[in-house]
């Protein structure tokens, strides 16, 4: 047995770990594709909050100064000091810290689903991307019989983040291809287009090798989490309304905060559209 065959078998025996690790990296890259959006969003919110409080403090101090408790100059001084407390630089730094926390928070929220639970491969009859996808869709349909926002949201969230992560990685590989063409054939006019196509192909490869397994694992894990919410005694009868509502809303942050970010991450200027644009550039 050759070295590469042995190496391949070594990784093959640990392929579930390899795929989980790859999937996790894919999602981490995908979440970061929305990172600048998070940063800008957080900064905009901070801006509005800061503006609101600055105006509020000035109005309060001005009103109190009008009652004669202290001079208007003193009120202006205090309000200026308060306004100075959080300046543009401070807001920028604070915004970056919050964006970092949000980004890591999103990754941590998804970590459980991404690491997920995997079916033992020999139990699964379906093989290949189509088979795995069809099985995932079937199980998803069955899982949705009990309404739960978490399970509704997890599939598009994981799909979008993994897709944007794959495109991001594809763009990185495109840079390497592009440099290769620049070195080998600097005058070849189609080098840019071929490199971009190579990047897209690499992204598709990543989707093929990691996404079906990732989505499957996330669905199963979401199903497990739903089961963990129910007592085994309750399985035969519908739970009370309060519990049903709590279960339904359990995934609200995922559905209303993370999902929009995931969708946007696919269409960020830096990945998908640019890559597509370069494939057709100057043709």
């Amino acid at each position, binding site marked *: 047995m050759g070295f590469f065959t042995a190496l391949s078998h070594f990784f093959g025996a640990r392929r579930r770990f390899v795929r989980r690790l*790859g999937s996790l990296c894919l999602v981490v890259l995908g979440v970061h594709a929305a990172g600048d959006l998070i940063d800008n969003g957080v900064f905009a919110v901070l801006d509005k909050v800061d*503006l609101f409080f600055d105006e509020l403090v000035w109005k309060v101090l001005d009103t109190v100064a009008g009652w004669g408790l202290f001079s208007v100059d003193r009120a202006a001084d205090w309000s200026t000091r308060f306004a*100075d407390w959080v300046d543009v630089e401070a807001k920028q730094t604070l915004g970056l810290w919050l*964006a970092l926390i949000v980004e890591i928070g999103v990754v941590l929220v998804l970590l459980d689903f991404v690491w997920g639970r995997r079916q033992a491969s020999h139990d699964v009859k379906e093989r290949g991307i189509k088979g795995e996808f069809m099985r995932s869709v079937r199980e998803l349909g069955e899982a949705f019989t009990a309404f739960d926002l978490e399970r509704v949201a997890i599939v598009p969230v994981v799909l979008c983040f993994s897709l944007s992560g794959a495109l991001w990685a594809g763009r990185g590989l495109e840079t390497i291809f592009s440099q290769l063409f620049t070195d080998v054939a600097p005058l070849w006019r189609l080098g840019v287009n071929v490199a971009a196509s190579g990047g897209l192909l690499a992204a598709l490869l990543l989707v093929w090798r990691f996404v079906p397994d990732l989505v499957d694992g996330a669905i199963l894990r979401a199903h497990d989490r739903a089961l963990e919410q129910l007592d085994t005694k309750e399985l035969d009868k519908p739970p009370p309304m309060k519990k049903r509502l709590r279960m339904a809303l359990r995934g609200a942050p995922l559905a209303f905060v993370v999902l929009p970010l995931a969708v946007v991450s696919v269409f960020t200027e830096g990945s998908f559209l640019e890559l597509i644009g370069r494939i057709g550039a100057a043709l």
Partner: protein
Amino acid sequence: MTDFDLSKFDLPPAGASAAEPKKDVKVRGLFDALLCLVLLYGAYAHTPVGAVLEYGVRTALGSKNKPSLFASFRGADTEVKLDAASFDGQSVHAADQLPSPIEDAVKLTKVNGELLASLVALHGSCELGGCTIKTPPFLEDLLEADLRDDTVPIAQVALGIAKGKRRFLSAETATEAMFIAPFVVERAVRQAEASGLDRPEDINVHSDFFPANIRRGAMQDAIQVLALYRMRTLAWPTPATARVTSPFGYRTHPVLKTRRFHNGTDIGVRTGTPLRSAHRGIIKRSGYDSVSGNYVHIDHGFGIVSTHCHMSETQVKQDQHVGRLDVVGLSGATGRVTGPHLHYIVRVDKKAVDPQAYGEAPRRKTKLDMDGKEPVTPKVFQKKNTPDAGPDANTPAP
């Protein structure tokens, strides 16, 4: 919707580990492992999650060289790449009169005199009517000639830069190539270009494509020169005739009568006067603040950042590239002000510095509102003496 008979799924119990593949089945996994490696590198090198992990590991190992947690955010300013110590004491004001050997070299080669002056300031000296610098390691490559002496006249350096300018289309890139190696720079520029980055010839853009050993070593020499050159060529944002109404430093506030630190320079300009970028850069923020009014925050690279405040209108968007002296907006009286003026802040290495000490700014001739103390010496870094930037003390103009 109410069917909770979840037991119909044929699933192993929660928490149970899935069975391993049968031992006799040999599955290949090298391809997946290689793809995983690519993803692992991407997540490590280009995301905050990777930065946080690296930061944690380096902290645990007691390393002083820790990565920035925000480097992968576009909203973050350029990481400071300067070696502050080597700058201390260097003039950052554009010289009205350059030494005659530099003037001669400029006439001969048309290379910017401030660039040559920056080279001499950091790597050489002017003595007995001649200016020389320590021979840069790759000047030979640019000149295509053998250089045997340890020092080289500035005219010869200028000639090398002029020759390199034809190859790199920029005197700054040619200067960089003298220290780093032309083929390495050329390759990094092409890689930055192929990645679709704007201004690939700028060292702040293409330095990410240098090999690791270059990033740690030779790059610093080039960075120092180019950073000093950029500082010495910072333009003034308003027409030169505009009057400075309140300079940088501690002052007694004319209305509040309290001693406060003023972190920028107030320039009296009528509403609607075009305000320009001090140098080329990227718009990091463009927005409204209750104190600063409409403001524009420009990153000029090397840790040099300028902010224009109280504008009536901003004419740039976030992430936009601007050139030197490009109009970024119109002056006004927005935010907390008593009249129209520009509050102009320059930060170097995240510390507010006197804008009048840089580049082509009108020099401070009097002590003005310094409360009898000496004006701030035009040094780049005065970590011990310069008061910390503190809050954005852009108090109303008098």
